[in-house]
């Protein structure tokens, strides 16, 4: 095993996959071990394709994918012993009980933790003897997650696990994922278009749009660097394009500047042009995501 393999749970280099109407374009992505990465993108952005390549279910046309040190898709069998994968569109066997599924997974994975499985049954309010077809959507998602968590995987890959869930179920699942991370060696890649969920549990954030990674960094850095400056600008003064400003909207005397590399000097720079800084606002992850996507699309179109 190389140093890189031990350092990163996931490593994608220049991964490209072409479909007729969609291209996943030279994806570079690194998830250090022991971290949670939120992969945020709109529907059709390429989250699921990226995850399927990571799981060896789709073969990339070019580029390298390594998961837990294994080259994908060639070494997918070895890698999948230590990966727990659940996706929004994954279903269990309707005619069988949750208990049957637990027995089935237990027969395959020697790491299956019976006590933890029982604990999860209780925490998620599930009954092993109930057939899958009688479960609500939330209970099905929790069942799938129970089957994944109780096998104690090194890496959890979750493709939109909270989509369509009520707030209580979402909270239960996110809380459980936080518990999982108490074990420092474990890593999670968590895709979603719900930025609130991602913001709640992630260490790293990656934005993906139209098949391209548009930004990827530490969550705290994102929240630190992105700011919205509300300005009052006397008529006749043109605001210059300062470095770190990715969007500037102006209406009469009022302007809003969006920065992805905010430093306090930026406010002074605007003041020096004659503008008055009314307010400097922090941005939510959702606002950052939208601003990032719009900026990226403008760049591509230019």
């Amino acid at each position, binding site marked *: 095993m190389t140093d890189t393999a031990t350092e990163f749970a996931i490593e994608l280099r220049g991964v490209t996959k072409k479909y007729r109407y969609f291209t996943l374009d030279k994806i570079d992505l690194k998830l250090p071990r022991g971290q949670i990465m939120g992969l945020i993108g709109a529907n059709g952005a390429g989250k699921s394709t990226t995850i*399927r390549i990571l*799981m*060896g*279910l*789709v*073969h990339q046309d070019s580029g390298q994918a390594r998961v837990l040190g294994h080259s994908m*898709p060639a070494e*997918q*069998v*070895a890698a*999948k*012993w230590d*990966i*727990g*994968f*659940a*996706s929004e*569109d*994954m*279903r*269990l*066997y*309707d*005619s*069988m009980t949750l208990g*049957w599924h637990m027995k*089935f997974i237990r*027969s*395959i994975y020697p790491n299956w933790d019976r006590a933890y499985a029982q604990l999860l049954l209780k925490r998620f309010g599930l009954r092993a003897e109930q057939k899958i077809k009688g479960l609500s959507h939330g209970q099905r998602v929790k069942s*799938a997650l129970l089957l*994944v968590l109780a096998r104690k995987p090194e890496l959890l890959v979750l493709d939109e696990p909270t989509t369509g869930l009520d707030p209580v179920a979402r909270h239960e699942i996110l809380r459980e994922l936080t518990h999982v991370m108490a074990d420092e060696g474990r890593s999670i890649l968590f895709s979603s278009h719900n930025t609130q969920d991602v913001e709640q549990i992630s260490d790293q954030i990656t934005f993906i749009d139209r098949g391209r990674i548009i930004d990827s960094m530490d969550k705290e850095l994102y929240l630190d660097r992105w700011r919205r400056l509300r300005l009052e600008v006397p008529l006749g003064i043109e605001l210059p394009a300062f470095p770190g400003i990715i969007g500037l909207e102006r209406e009469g005397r009022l302007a809003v500047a969006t920065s992805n590399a905010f430093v306090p000097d930026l406010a002074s720079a605007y003041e020096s042009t004659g503008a008055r800084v009314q307010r400097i606002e922090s941005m939510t992850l959702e606002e950052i995501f939208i601003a990032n996507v719009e900026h990226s699309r403008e760049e591509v179109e230019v």
Partner: protein
Amino acid sequence: MNGPVIGHLVLKDWRINRLLISVALGVGIVALVLTQSGGETPRLLGTVWFFVVMCVLSSMLPASVIVNERKKQTLAFIMSLPVSSLQYSIAKVVSNWAMFLVPWVTLLISALILIETRHIAPRGVIPMLLILAMLPLIGFCLISATALVGESEGWLIAVSILCNSSYWFVWYLLARIPSLTTHWTGPVAIWSPAARTVLSGEVGLIVLILALTLFLQSRKRDFI
């Protein structure tokens, strides 16, 4: 080869489809009982049921075991386990074949025993019975291959219709080969060169379809 996991997948398919197998076996046995209950009509009805069970099972098993896994979105769950797409395909071929062969072999052996002991038909019919019984097996093989490689319910239905409607035509063609039909009312089973050639051809065709299925599956780049 990851045998234990493949084994678990095969057992899983068995557990999920055991009702279907039991029903097929039950109806097949009823059909065989009918053939020896006396009278021309029950015998004809039993014979028709016997082949209908084989034909229906040859379409229903691939639909239930393979296509439903995609349709009901349980494929992602199975592919999250430590198996490759080729190993998954091998598991599907093994479980599907085993599930079909259990009633097929049971019913065929039962028919042979009834011919030998209860004389429900002359022994001379045995080569033809085997040749005819191989047709649903070939159909099953082709339908399973379509289900695995084609990944679509539409293709499965089209090939099922094609197979089920062509059995009768192929039987008609086989019945026109004199060296196959000359001895079928005789007291002894005679394995004429024509009978041996047709049987070998049927077995060869099955092997070819199986090899082609696994070859095509191993070349797939996108599995889900």
